[in-house]
């Protein structure tokens, strides 16, 4: 699929390489041959499939590097950003959802419900602009783009700047990276937050009505015990499902957030590659995104099976 979609894009990558000024006919043929574009579409497809299975997507037309190299450099940025976004949104989402469910029809409840309703409708790119306007332009607390200030030189180990800077013992670099990451992660996590608040609240409310919760109350268990041992445990499968969904949405969110904050990650890479008609990069980007999504779905399913034994035997969820 990722092969066929991208081949249909009008525009010739060869023209993109040599520019509009033109080159000799022999040179054009030579480039075509190097890129494998002189063969028929069907031949190209088989070569693509064979290479894809071996994890080989060819060289990027723009950077002239193997696509895997580009991806390897860029993905830690997206990974780091997504993890931070997921971390704050799930913690805040859980807390807010539990608070709303335990104090139903209170100020907190209405607040949480309206927050998640608005969060669902919020166009991420506008939210990002507002956050930039407020925290970066007006208050000047945070930088608007990039991953770290230029004066820091962090040795490459994992590619995750937060970890790399800690490993090399540069606390200033760590805080600089954290500061750069704060706004994008905040924006990226907002969508997941809305989802997690909503699911947590509604599943807690449902479970509170169950008989075994009444029994637990009648037994005189402490509130915190009921909350964590009984309600939370039973709400976990639903919350995990929501987390999996939120993870899936992160990729879409990352495209927006990274474009907005000039974050050198996969999302911006995909958009840029589409604009430059960089076939190998776009194909690889599509392929990797699908792999990531399949992987996330797999992990969520397995986790749900662990926390909910009832589902362990069922063949498909």
């Amino acid at each position: 699929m990722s092969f066929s979609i991208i081949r249909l894009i009008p525009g010739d990558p060869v023209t993109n390489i040599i520019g509009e000024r033109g080159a000799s006919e022999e040179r054009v043929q030579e480039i075509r041959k190097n890129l494998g574009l002189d063969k028929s579409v069907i031949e190209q497809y088989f070569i693509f499939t064979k290479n894809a299975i071996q994890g080989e997507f060819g060289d990027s037309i723009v950077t002239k590097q193997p696509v895997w190299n580009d991806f390897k450099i860029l993905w830690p940025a997206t990974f780091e950003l997504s993890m931070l976004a997921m971390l704050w949104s799930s913690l805040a989402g859980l807390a807010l959802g539990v608070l709303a469910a335990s104090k139903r029809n209170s100020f907190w409840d209405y607040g949480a419900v309206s927050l998640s309703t608005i969060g669902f409708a919020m166009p991420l790119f506008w939210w990002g602009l507002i956050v930039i306007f407020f925290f970066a332009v007006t208050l000047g607390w945070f930088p608007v783009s990039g991953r770290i200030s230029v004066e820091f030189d962090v040795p490459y180990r994992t590619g995750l700047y937060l970890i790399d800077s800690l490993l090399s013992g540069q606390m200033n670099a760590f805080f600089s990276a954290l500061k750069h990451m704060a706004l994008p992660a905040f924006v990226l996590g907002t969508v997941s937050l809305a989802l997690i608040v909503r699911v947590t609240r509604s599943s807690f409310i449902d479970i509170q009505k169950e008989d075994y919760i009444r029994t637990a109350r009648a037994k005189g268990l402490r509130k915190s015990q009921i909350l964590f041992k009984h309600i939370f445990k039973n709400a976990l499968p639903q919350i995990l499902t929501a987390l999996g969904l939120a993870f899936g949405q992160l990729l879409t969110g990352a495209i927006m957030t990274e474009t907005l904050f000039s974050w050198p990650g996969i999302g911006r890479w995909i958009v840029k590659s589409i604009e430059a008609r960089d076939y190998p990069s776009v194909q690889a980007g599509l392929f990797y995104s699908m792999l990531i999504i399949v992987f996330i779905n797999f992990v969520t399913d397995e986790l749900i099976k662990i926390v909910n034994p009832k589902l362990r035997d069922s063949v498909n969820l």
Partner: protein
Amino acid sequence: MMKNKSFLIGMALFIFFCLMAGLATFWTPYSYQEVFDGAALLKPSARFLLGTDDLGRDLFSRLLVGAQLSLGIGIFVGGLSVVVGASLGIISAYYGKKLDQALVQMMNGIQALPSLLLALFVVAILGGGILNVILSVTLVSIPVMFRLVRSAALVENSKDYIVAARAVGASDFRIITAHLFPNCITPILVQSAVCCSEAILNTAALGFLGLGIPAPYPEWGTMLSDSKNFIETAPQLMTIPGLCLLLLILSTQLISDGLRDHLDPKLRGRS
């Protein structure tokens, strides 16, 4: 239905935007593409109600025409996804077997990627232009509609009245149109509102990434993308179209929530 608060608020907002779009068909203060020399990035004033953008075009006029575009695309895509997605869903559930499998697989294929990413690729393939944008956002909204309607129709299809209708010799067409369709109307209505809001959001997102409805058209997402560089000097360029976008999407979502609560009493009080 009139007691349903979220539906009422959503409807009020929606009607407001309809009026805005309606107004734009008859009257705008200036043409949306008229460039005023030396009037770039003006603050709101009596002459330009909401100020002007970086090229010296009237923001208010552009906003009105933008409402027309967003609303038009939203309603059109919502309708199209009903026509295509819902009928495919019912047909798939009714005929079953290989046709069903093939359609389900096809929809799975479309859904393999997140909707925005897919829309992005479709637009990249077909190139910009209003029609292509509509096509891409419709394509990504069909699978969800298909799934919901198919599962609803599967439940209905096994009920006694369908068996009875078949027994008295009703034709396939009659069973589908007179029995299955009316009984699946709840998910169809609710989901069409969702499709509408998704379409508006995705169109704006494409516009923001520079792959949406091409310039001169004042699409709100494109306007937001243009406003990026003038956040400091002219914040109203960024705040107002974005607020409109948020409220319009919010209104369609509130309507779909309200519809669901009203039409499906089992779900009432949840969410």
